[in-house]
């Protein structure tokens, strides 16, 4: 059939099972927008800033089995997507971004709103395209989705000149073939390595599973649990691996790393075998590499061969899709117990109770997280920004529902909390979604309250109002003698702000009112903002300063465990 380029794009999106698009229009992308009304199956949500379109698509993709889609116009529209693309690239989130470009004959002439979007986004996408031939549109979009969601997922950008959207082409949906001779994700584990891994597991005395985002991406919850239970292996979940293994399970040991549970880091230190599953040994997990898990052999399971030996040498590398590899491995792993080891970890938990929250009258941010957990009975998707509140949300909510924690891990993008929560709620409308916000991060993307109100997207926002860039203030306290340079800031009246957006707003200033207000927020139908005026100089513990090891771990000060002086760390 004869269609315009824009129609081909819409037809292709529908064939990729797209139902929601987050975007913001402009001249170059206008032919696509003017075509959207012909395709009511494609629901468009108009954001107020393109960064939010990308983060919303990201949040949406993380909680559904779909690829998130966002659209922007050329030049500034496209450059506004960059943070969102980089975020999705770092966290392996399947996304397709479509951008308008100036007409073909204007490319390279510094035309109005022309930016080399393919060049700009090259290092922050899994792949990107500039479509110069309208006959290539259908194939390109098909390839974009294929690349975004297979192998190690990631964002793919398709840049389309305005006149390519306008040109009329022959479209035959039955005859669209992808042509990617260089793209063959490695899906199953090598049988020899599987045997070697099973042997290491059977010999290990102190094995630990390190479960990462790959478990969630691969939806390998049952397989992970089978492995852990069969061989009685304690499970540590990285920041992005949180919710891949139920935290109420006896074998759950919590999060490792810079702000991980002390017992998780100690367990890694004492372990003789790390089974790393869909995780990439980020420096926030390992600290100083030479002191990381010094006694352990390493089985490294990852779909991306480039992750093997990148940061930590693997004794047995296993390249493949996590789910497939675990199925293969579980067949060979025999029933075992590690009673002494599990007991030792239990004992460490008692000696280093990182998950405890001080009992006092203060409005502690940790306490707010714990109360949201209790009020929701753990039945909520938690979305966070970046900073202290993010770490508390990771530490003090106990995740038992697969895929219920949405956070910016690799890039650490403040401002993620608002649009990603919006995207998550759009993706899972029947789930409760709480967005745990920093007062700093919230103000980076708060313009989306308008989008949220307009579409009545029922997100509950909990602003952790400490009047500081809290995490940076903590570094200043620890490493710069409390020299609080530019971390304290003025805040608007968040309740009035909510009202300005025609949203319900509450303020909580005392501990006694926390639970009640959470309940009220949940009883209200529609988006709510709660301004929790929390203790302003509370610190996140434990902390392993950057570039150091578990030996230098700082734990919450309590009698007999005073804070020691420490040097500044690199990054």
């Amino acid at each position, binding site marked *: 059939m004869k269609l315009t380029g824009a129609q081909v794009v819409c037809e292709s999106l529908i064939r990729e099972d797209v139902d929601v698009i987050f975007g913001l229009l402009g001249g170059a992308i206008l032919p696509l927008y003017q075509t959207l009304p012909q395709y009511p199956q494609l629901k468009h949500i108009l954001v107020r800033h393109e960064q939010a379109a990308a983060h919303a698509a990201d949040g949406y993709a993380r909680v559904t089995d779909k690829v998130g889609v966002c659209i922007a116009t050329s030049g500034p529209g496209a450059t506004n997507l960059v943070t969102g693309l980089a975020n999705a690239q770092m966290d392996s989130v399947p996304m397709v971004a479509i951008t308008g470009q100036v007409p073909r004959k204007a490319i390279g002439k510094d035309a109005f709103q022309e930016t080399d979007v*393919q*060049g700009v986004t*090259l*290092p922050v996408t*899994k*792949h990107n395209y*500039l479509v110069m031939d309208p006959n290539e549109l259908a194939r390109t979009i098909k390839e974009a989705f294929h*690349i975004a969601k297979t*192998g190690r997922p990631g964002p793919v950008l398709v840049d389309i000149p305005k006149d390519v959207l306008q040109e009329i082409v022959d479209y035959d949906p039955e005859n669209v073939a992808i042509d*990617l*001779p*260089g*793209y*063959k*994700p*490695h899906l199953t584990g090598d049988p020899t390595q599987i045997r070697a891994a099973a042997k290491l597991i059977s010999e290990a005395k102190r094995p630990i599973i390190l479960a990462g985002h790959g478990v969630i991406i691969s939806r390998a919850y049952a397989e992970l649990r089978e492995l852990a239970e069969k061989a009685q292996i304690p499970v540590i979940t990285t920041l992005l691996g949180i919710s891949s293994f139920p935290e109420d399970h006896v074998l759950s040991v919590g999060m490792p790393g810079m702000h991980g549970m002390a017992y998780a880091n100690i367990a890694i230190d004492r372990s003789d075998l790390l089974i790393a599953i869909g995780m990439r040994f980020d420096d926030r997990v390992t600290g100083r590499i030479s002191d990381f898990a010094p006694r352990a052999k390493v089985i490294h399971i990852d*779909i*991306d*061969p*480039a992750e*093997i*030996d*990148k940061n930590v040498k693997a004794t047995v590398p296993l*390249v493949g899709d996590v789910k497939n590899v675990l199925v293969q491995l579980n067949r060979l792993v025999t029933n075992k117990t590690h009673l002494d080891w599990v007991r030792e970890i239990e004992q460490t938990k008692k000696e280093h109770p990182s998950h405890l929250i001080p009992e006092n009258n203060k409005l502690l941010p940790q306490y707010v997280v714990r109360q949201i957990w209790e009020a929701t009975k753990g039945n909520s998707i938690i979305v966070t920004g970046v900073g202290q509140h993010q770490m508390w949300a990771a530490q003090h909510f106990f995740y038992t529902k697969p895929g219920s924690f949405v956070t910016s891990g690799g890039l650490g993008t403040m401002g993620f909390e608002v649009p990603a929560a919006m995207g998550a709620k759009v993706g899972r409308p029947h789930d409760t979604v709480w967005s745990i916000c920093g007062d700093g991060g919230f103000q980076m993307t708060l313009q989306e309250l308008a989008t949220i109100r307009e579409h009545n997207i029922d997100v509950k926002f909990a602003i952790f109002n400490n009047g500081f860039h809290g995490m940076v203030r903590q570094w200043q306290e620890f490493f710069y003698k409390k020299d609080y340079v530019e971390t304290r800031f003025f805040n608007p009246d968040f309740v009035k702000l909510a009202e300005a957006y025609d949203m319900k707003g509450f303020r909580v200033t005392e501990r006694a009112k926390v639970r009640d207000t959470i309940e009220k927020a949940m009883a209200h139908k529609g988006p709510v903002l709660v301004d929790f005026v929390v203790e302003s100089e509370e610190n996140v513990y434990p902390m392993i300063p950057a570039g150091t090891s578990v030996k230098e771990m700082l734990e919450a000060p309590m009698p007999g465990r005073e804070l020691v002086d420490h040097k500044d760390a690199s990054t």
Partner: protein
Amino acid sequence: MTTNGTHYRKHTITALVQDKPGVLNRVASMFRRRGFNIASLAVGESEVPHLSRMTFVVNAENEDTVDQATKQLRKIIEVVKVTDLSAEDIVARELALVKVRAPDSAIRGEIIQVVELFRAKIVDVASDTLVIEITGEESKIDTILSLMKGFGILEIMRTGRVAITRGTKSALKTNAKEG
């Protein structure tokens, strides 16, 4: 090669890539971003239509760096095959064009002697210059160039290394790409 006290070794890697706009940019950008040090890069058509072959010479501290570089290369969607030739039996060649000062027949004669000795070629003769074409391994080119210095080099044009395995083995068939 030694820079800042670190010992580097040269490794030859070839890649078969789809002949699409921007591939070179993608590859170069990856090397730069990840801090790999490319000593030379040569690109040309391959025996397969729509596929080009790139030959990289990478300066690497150790095998791990080369391993990461090849893995990251394989991740580029338009890269079809990657072969690390470092451990292979290969023929490697570079081409250099050198313009040297040759003001009189005596000097001209001396230059021609060197050229013949090394089986290079004179490809242009002007009133007071000669252009010499040298093909060979890097070390051979380096030697001739150092000998020519004495005569006065006006200009050097030098390609990157291209390499191919000896015997029946083909870079296309080894090391199937994954990832």
